[in-house]
């Protein structure tokens, strides 16, 4: 990770634009994606692979939902809350979605301040992102608890097709795990930023490599991906 984006010693910065530029890059030596660091390339390819995992989960859920002969529980009703005497469908999910999308905003700001080498603001914004993420997971825990109390189990539920509970716990659980891992990474990286590891090029404990602020962006890629996946889960599971 010592090599960074935008460092091309000795290389002329003039690159052909458009499709010709892509062809030129791919037929050149050393790197197919110019100005893309190893870490960033690796995260992108990982996300591509992870996309396939979530796609398979969602497609399997849709298959189950479309082929079941028993009625599918109505998500608007199941995920409704009564707040102050008002019966509001999907309110908790709406708040969760809002929280998660907001965290993408703070993450983007953190990346910006990272490249400006503003140590404190970067760390604070990353921690805010982590806090929003943790809030999301907390609300998900609340939602799980509520459904479990109402009798929803992976193998059955009071309202209809058993696959409702199975898919719900599996998909939101897998997504929640992703968010949790993201929160842990955010906190770990925020600590490094705060301590100034990337200003003094401190070496990693395991890898003995020098880190830099790009890791903020790479963590951000993962975070935005997790948010994007949630949008699909929201659309296909809750709104359908």
């Amino acid at each position, binding site marked *: *990770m*010592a*090599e960074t984006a935008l*460092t*091309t*010693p*000795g*290389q002329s910065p003039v690159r052909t634009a458009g499709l010709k530029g892509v062809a030129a890059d*791919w*037929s*050149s*030596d*050393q*790197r*197919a*994606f*110019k100005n*893309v*660091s*190893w*870490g960033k*390339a*690796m995260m992108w*390819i*990982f996300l*591509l*692979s*992870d996309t*396939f*995992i979530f*796609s*398979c*989960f969602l497609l*399997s859920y849709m*298959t*189950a939902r479309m*082929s*079941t*002969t*028993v009625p599918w529980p109505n998500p608007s009703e199941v995920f409704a809350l009564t707040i102050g005497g008002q019966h509001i469908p999907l309110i908790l999910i709406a708040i969760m979605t809002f929280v998660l999308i907001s965290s993408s905003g703070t993450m983007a700001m953190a990346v910006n301040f990272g490249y400006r080498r503003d140590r404190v603001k970067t760390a604070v914004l990353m921690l805010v992102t982590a806090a929003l993420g943790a809030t999301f997971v907390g609300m998900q825990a609340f939602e799980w608890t509520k459904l479990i109390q109402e009798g929803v189990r*992976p*193998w059955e539920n009071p309202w209809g*097709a*058993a*696959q409702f*509970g*199975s898919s719900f716990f*599996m998909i939101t659980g*897998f997504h929640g795990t992703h968010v949790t891992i993201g929160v842990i990474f955010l906190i770990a990286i925020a600590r490094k930023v705060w301590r100034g590891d990337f200003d003094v090029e401190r070496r990693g404990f*395991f*890898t*003995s*490599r020098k880190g830099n602020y790009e890791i903020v962006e790479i963590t951000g890629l993962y975070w935005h991906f997790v948010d994007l996946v949630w949008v699909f889960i929201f659309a296909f599971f809750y709104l359908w």
Partner: protein
Amino acid sequence: MVDVPYEATVDVPPAEVAEVELYHPKSWWTQYVFSQDAKVIAIQYSLTATAIGLVALVLSWLMRLQLGFPGTFSFIDASQYLQFITMHGMIMVIYLLTALFLGGFGNYLIPLMVGARDMVFPYVNMLSYWVYLLAVIVLASTFFVPGGPTGAGWTLYPPQAILSGTPGQDWGIILMLSSLILFIIGFTMGGLNYVVTVLQARTRGMTLMRLPLTVWGIFTATIMALLAFPALFVASVMMLFDRLLGTSFFMPALVEMGQQMKYGGGSPILFQHLFWFFGHPEVYIVALPAFGIVSDLISTHARKNIFGYRMMVWAIVAIGALSFIVWAHHMYVSGMHPHFGFFFATTTLIIAIPTAIKVYNWVLTLWRGDIHLTVPMLFALGFIITFVNGGLTGLFLGNVVVDVPLSDTMFVVAHFHMVMGVAPIMVVLGAIYHWYPKVTGRMLDDWMGKFHFWVTFLGAYLIFFPMHYLGLLGVPRRYHDIGEAAFITPSVHTLNAFMSVVALIVGLAQMVFLFNLVWSYFKGRPSGGNPWRATTLEWQTPETPPGHGNWGKELPVVYRWAYDYSVPGAKEDFIPQNQPPTTRAIQGAAT
């Protein structure tokens, strides 16, 4: 045109990125055990894969003993037989071939062939091996748990995979699925490394179109694996939930032992789709590295450039892409709309085009080449013949109407053992004979190698050719004892006994190979750095075996493609990739 003296700085672009400092081992542990060096990780992968592969080999002996001499070996009962086929298949396909080609050859060859010092993220690469080892341990542990390993067949089709009639329903299936999940996690960590190393960490002058085909094969297979394994991951997670939590993703309403089970509403076909969306690309995940490696073996040992390099590259990419839209040809008898059968049969047969391009190009590379019948070359030739044979029976099975009567017969077993069993193993063995000198600095013994080749090659045909005939008669696969039936002729029993004897002999020949590996490590003839006089970068390392960081002080600079063999006018019959041209032609400089 005029020839002018060559200046390296003009034609080879300068380095784009600063060199990354490597992790330097501080103790024996970090040098040989928890090593972050791709070469050590490669050997760890290879040894682990070989060890678990030997277990699968022994299982195949036990199956052959039962099939050849039914009733003679009382210690193999029907349940155990099913457990043996399951473990044999799963180990061979995933834990041996996938791990060996990508984790073993990939780790060793990619950094050396692209001119890198190591994989881009050595620490993650190390984790990849240890998670793989954990997956293998979990898998092997199923032999010792109550109820033994699962007997669901390597395809693990539900609902039978998790019902009580199937052996290993207690622990076997749970551990098998867990092991698969671990394997996929471990593989992903390694796979990301291989892809990024090829894309972003090549040396100066190494363009994608100068890569040896070995790298192209492993690279494409790794991308495929990163996109195909997710389907298996998801299927494993869901089946694990069906088994442990009582969900009904794959389980329809069932009556078992007169009892209505609590399952209901799930789709077994969904599992088949997920499994084969992984399973068919998996065939090519194993085959593409073999294609790549065999191209390099043939070119090197026939002292001739590979015929149609660009076509070979595009054929690899095309096969990789097409293999994602053929999966349901494994499901013709599962019940689907005839139009889907038509679609999947068509796509399946279209794959024959890029595959045939490759086979023709191998043959045309051999044509009028200076063929050296070294052991790696013998295995490469064995591969081409075997692969063509196995591919031709694939044409039968790819067509719906022909596949339906042949489904679940020994014909299918013979087909895939030829095409994705014997053929890739031929390449694995040839590749080991080819690169062993680079790994150890000593040659493998030639006489033992030739003996090993001929017994393996001829033996494989003696085993699997009669099996096609059994399949055409209608002998079903996965049967513990086929017993007496009108369509089972006496020749079936004779042939079964014959095949079993041959299988034991072929298995024993592999012991000669293992002995050769050990013996040559200590007593083999010193090989020098480039015994095959090959052009690719791994043979040009300053040390053999290559040291930490591969290249000494300076990274190599690449000036040419990987196949400059027998170039007219050249001093030697090979020009290494890192040898600068002495002159270069400039258009329009003369007159």
